[in-house]
């Protein structure tokens, strides 16, 4: 097992490294921006992290794209050192193709499709 050398000089008992989203401190109302970050588990969400591994912009741009950047080399390193990933990061990586597609992504899509179908059938019934 590769030894985790630096736990950022704060004396924690136990804990592990996670790859998760942290709000980048732009302090603008209604304009979030996330950094994909390898941090110690017990740290605050926006607190000191070990390394930044990418970004995620949740608001779509003028071409209706949500931009994500990922540093695959370093993500591989951290997962090789035993980092966990949070759910949204796993979903993003699944959509990117680095991980397999997350089951909940598929399930959510199926649910939405089923809901859309029932909506359209109900509308057609109401028309008739």
């Amino acid at each position, binding site marked *: 097992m590769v030894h985790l050398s630096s736990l950022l000089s704060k004396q924690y008992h136990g804990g592990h490294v996670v790859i998760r989203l942290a709000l980048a401190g732009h302090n603008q109302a209604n304009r979030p921006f996330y950094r994909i970050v390898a941090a110690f588990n017990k740290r605050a969400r926006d607190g000191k992290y070990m390394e930044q591994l990418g970004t995620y912009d949740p608001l779509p741009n003028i071409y209706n794209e949500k931009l994500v950047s990922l540093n695959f080399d370093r993500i591989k390193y951290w*997962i090789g*050192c035993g980092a966990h990933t949070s759910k949204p990061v796993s979903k993003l990586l699944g959509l990117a193709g680095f991980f397999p597609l997350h*089951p909940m992504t598929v*399930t959510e899509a199926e649910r939405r499709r089923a809901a859309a179908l029932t909506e359209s059938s109900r509308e057609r019934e109401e028309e008739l």
Partner: protein
Amino acid sequence: MLQALCSRSLQAARLCAPRRAVVVEVVRGRKSRSDPIAKSKEGRIKTPPPVDPVEMVVLKERYEEYQLIISALRLEFKEEVQRKKYEAETGSMAEERARKEAEEHSALMAWNRAENQRMLQLRLQRVQKEKEEVEQKEFEAALEREQKRQEFIKLKEEELLRLQEEAKHFITLENLDQRIEEALDNPKNYNFAIDKEGRVIKQTVLK
């Protein structure tokens, strides 16, 4: 009513906002343990969201497959990290790199030693020059002192000679009578007249 505050303006809001029964903060859980349940929620029974069994089975299968793949990926990445570490330490390039680094280090050390030698030489020369200058100054100062001493001696000798000369004309106990006789015999007249133009007339009525 409820103001969404960020942590920094919390203090300001506590000062500005009026005192309420419940503290107005947008932190996890507005109410504490001892706060009573709201009237609209008194008879509420919380139920978990309904689970579709078919979907659940499908979901469980998907999760199993997903977790298998994920753990396999994890092992792969771990192996890759360890391999990289191993290669970095005992790989084919590692020895060459170590050798090159050692060469560079020894070259730099040699250059450093040469620099130190050069600086030493310069320093020695400088120190030598300074010593010589100091010696020179000292020598000159000694000369000056000697010269002054000699001049002083000369002055004093001259004074001594002068005094000796004058001593011949001093009045002593033996000369006393003789000199008195002489003085009485030769009366001197120190009177003189002078006018505004500066003409001195030594001849007077007295003898």
